[in-house]
């Protein structure tokens, strides 16, 4: 089997401007939705109580909501979780009541309606824990970005480091934008997925930059644009196969992992799709705009002492 039979170098960079405009628009949209709608943060960040209740038969979420609402929770969220027989109920933190009291009260009310209800899981998080998680999440993100930049600047060059990080932040913001737009639950697992994507998507850019460096060495006559095009073309099959196989695993998690891994897998899926795109078009294009040259990557041989034009320089007798 061979999926990719590419005759000539594909002129990716010719379309860079259009694609960059598209990615800028998506990015702006993501930022807009983040600002406008905000993330639907999980209980780990906001604090509160989450109960998972299982029934013997499928249950009407509306009725459960009504039952819980009667207990004096105006903005209670009830949704199906996994199957139609499981529901997840979220209660905000209430002053003067512990979470155990809250969940016991809710369970009593639910059992009065349907005695088959069983409490499968219960989770309570205090508000200060949530605050800490948010600051730690931001710290982790900053550390990843700085760490990767330093490594890439050291191994390649600052222009690559900058463009890679910009491209990957673009991925991250777009994932967050999706979560804001669809109001999917942003949990700790999703945060882990976002950070994993950050590390993973840099892979892509690194592979392409590696090839650009190699091409600069090998084909001395090629222009920068041609070099970049050639590098992307010759790695595209690997890029797509790698991402395809990672996506296979992620899909397996999405379909078989159950509700807990659902959004984790979803965040990874978006990250993988945009990861391919951003490293091909965004990272390489930004590096191009920044004016990457052969000299940036291939260090000139150290100058010898003395007059460089002297034909006898360095000669020993």
């Amino acid at each position: 089997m061979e999926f990719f039979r590419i005759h000539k170098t594909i002129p990716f960079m010719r379309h860079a401007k259009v694609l960059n405009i598209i990615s800028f628009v998506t990015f702006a949209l993501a930022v807009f939705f983040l600002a406008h709608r905000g993330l639907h943060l999980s209980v780990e960040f906001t604090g509160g109580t989450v109960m998972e209740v299982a029934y013997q038969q499928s249950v009407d979420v509306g009725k459960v909501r009504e039952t819980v609402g009667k207990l004096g929770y105006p903005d209670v969220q009830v949704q199906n979780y996994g199957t139609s027989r499981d529901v997840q109920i979220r209660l905000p933190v209430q002053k003067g009541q512990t979470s155990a009291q809250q969940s016991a009260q809710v369970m009593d009310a639910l059992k009065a309606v349907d005695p088959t209800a069983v409490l499968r899981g219960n989770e309570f998080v205090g508000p200060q824990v949530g605050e800490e998680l948010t600051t730690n999440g931001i710290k982790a993100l900053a550390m990843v970005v700085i760490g990767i930049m330093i490594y890439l600047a050291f191994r390649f060059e600052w222009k690559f480091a900058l463009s890679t990080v910009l491209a990957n932040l673009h991925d991250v913001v777009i994932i967050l934008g999706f979560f804001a737009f669809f109001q999917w639950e942003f949990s700790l697992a999703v945060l882990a997925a976002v950070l994993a994507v950050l590390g993973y998507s840099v892979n892509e850019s690194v592979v392409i930059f590696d090839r650009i460096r190699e091409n600069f060495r090998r084909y001395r006559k090629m222009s920068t644009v041609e070099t970049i095009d050639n590098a992307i073309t010759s790695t595209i099959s690997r890029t797509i196969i790698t991402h395809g196989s990672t996506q296979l695993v992620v899909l397996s998690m999405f379909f078989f992992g159950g509700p807990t891994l659902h959004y984790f897998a979803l965040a990874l899926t978006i990250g993988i799709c945009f990861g391919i795109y951003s490293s091909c078009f965004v990272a390489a294009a930004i590096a191009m705009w920044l004016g990457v040259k052969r000299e940036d990557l291939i260090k000139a041989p150290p100058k010898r002492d003395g007059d460089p034009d002297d034909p006898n320089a360095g000669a020993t007798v």
Partner: protein
Amino acid sequence: MNRYPVWKYAIIVIVLLVGLVYALPNFFGEAPAVQVSAAKATVKVDAGTQARVQEALKAGGLTPDMLTLDATSVRARFVTTDDQLKARDVLQRAFVPDASDPPYVVALNLVSRSPTWLTALHAFPMYLGLDLRGGVDFLLQVDMKGAIDKRAESFAGDLRTSLRDKNIRGSAVSRNGQTIEVRFRDAASLQAAKQLVQDQFADLSTVDSQEGSDWKLTASIKPEAARRLQDAALKQNITTLHNRINELGVAEPVIQQQGIDRIVVQLPGVQDTAKAKDILGRTATLEMRLVDESTEGRAAELGNGPVPFGSERFLDREGRAIIVKKQVLVTGENLTDAQPGFDSQTQQPKVDLTMDAKGGRIMRDVSRDNYRKRMAMLIFEKGKGEVLTAPSINGELGNRFQISGSMSVVEANDLALLLRAGSLAAPMEIIQERTIGPSLGADNINKGFKSVMYGFIAIMVFMCAYYALFGVFSSIALAVNLLLLVAILSMLQATLTLPGIAAMALAIGVAIDSNVLINERVREELRNGASPQAAIHAGYDRAWGTILDSNVTTLIAGVALLAFGSGPVRGFAVVHCIGIVTSMFSAVFFSRGLVNLWYGGKKKLKTVSIGTVWRPKTDGTAVVEAK
């Protein structure tokens, strides 16, 4: 060109063997077991306990499949749950004669079914997190400010007494948050007081200032002393929690420090959160009372008479009766610290006690009047008292005194711990709580396992179809990666959680990246007309730099997650990081070994089985070479 020296193969074989041995216990599953652990801090589980368990089981006509002793418990493994339940009853009768005051906890548990030789090699299965086995999980926050405030208050009291003792006049001591302020009318008193603090209060640092006609000395707890104090408070709270949780009869509770002021409590298998919380919040108290040494009291102690009026009978740790007066001299509230140490003169182990000012005053008066008499230290839990120790008073005691005598170092340590553990050093509150039902746990593990398995199979099928024999090599390398990952996690005794399983699945996806890079590179070399051997060599060589770069960047993300993550994110990060490292070994070093073994010896290699290598022809028509 493509040959490994023997030592490289040796490394591969050794790593595989070690990996196999340590991954193996995970595949044996779990067998029913009964666990006997101490219910009180005064009871120790040791080889003697193990022998007792064996005897009791023998007497009950039961032979355990395996009997192990670890730091905190004795576990007997059985083949059937019937035997397990019978054994529980037998052991319950033998070890817990009085259900209202159990010295031991006899609990049902699950123990790995792996054979003895694996256990002897310290190969244990991974520990399953609560989200996979069900249970309750609490995160408790210790009020450190409260602990330090309390300590500052006791320092203020001590300082007041010391100033009075030294006849330093005209001073007024007040506590302001965590600092102590002392005001004087003249500079000489200030100097004297400063000297006093320096001599007697090593944990305080002072600053003096002048305010109008007044001199002021501000004493604050030194940062290192405060840190020590926080540390001690946290340890004491953990010990106290241990004692309390033992009562729940939980097989393997986890009580751990997290950060500087938090404690994680995990109770596998417990569903009743209300009771668990009740017990976590209970307090134990320490009391000091005089031993009744009247004739009647002595007679009662030997069992030759009734307990005299105004006295009570308690048992000590060895079960001997001690008759103690009802009047309480001081309680644990007045005890600020208890530390084990060595007597500088006799070189015997001792326990140093520190009382606050009020306690010190009482001790001084009591010791003066009761020279050569015995004083009992009692610990009360659940309304039941027990004598920790009953030393005799050998001199006038102050706010610092020591208990010494025929103790071993271990006993001194234990006693210090017990004296401190009586009550919580600082108040705590529950800031996070999770309950996971056992069915949800089983569900999670099942789903997580399935997603790893299907993902693995899908990749394997694809790789074999796309890269032919090289795909087979890659698949084997991937399996080895998974094996090593499981082995390392088992060796570290890491706790496997659902996010950990997710990271394992992701690790498979990321690990295959290296193999794809290599295989594509080999194909490319072949496409450009390199000979098969050269293509393999160049493929591995050139891909290596890229693999290293991309894995290091992924590792940076993993380490950041590890550094700043908590709970589930950490579980994810640990597996993620280890997965990256093992994938470098398996995808580069190990798979190269396989390829070398297969192709390396063939001198006139014509073709390589790496799927289709497609070559564009110069005239534009493509030729497909099928291998």
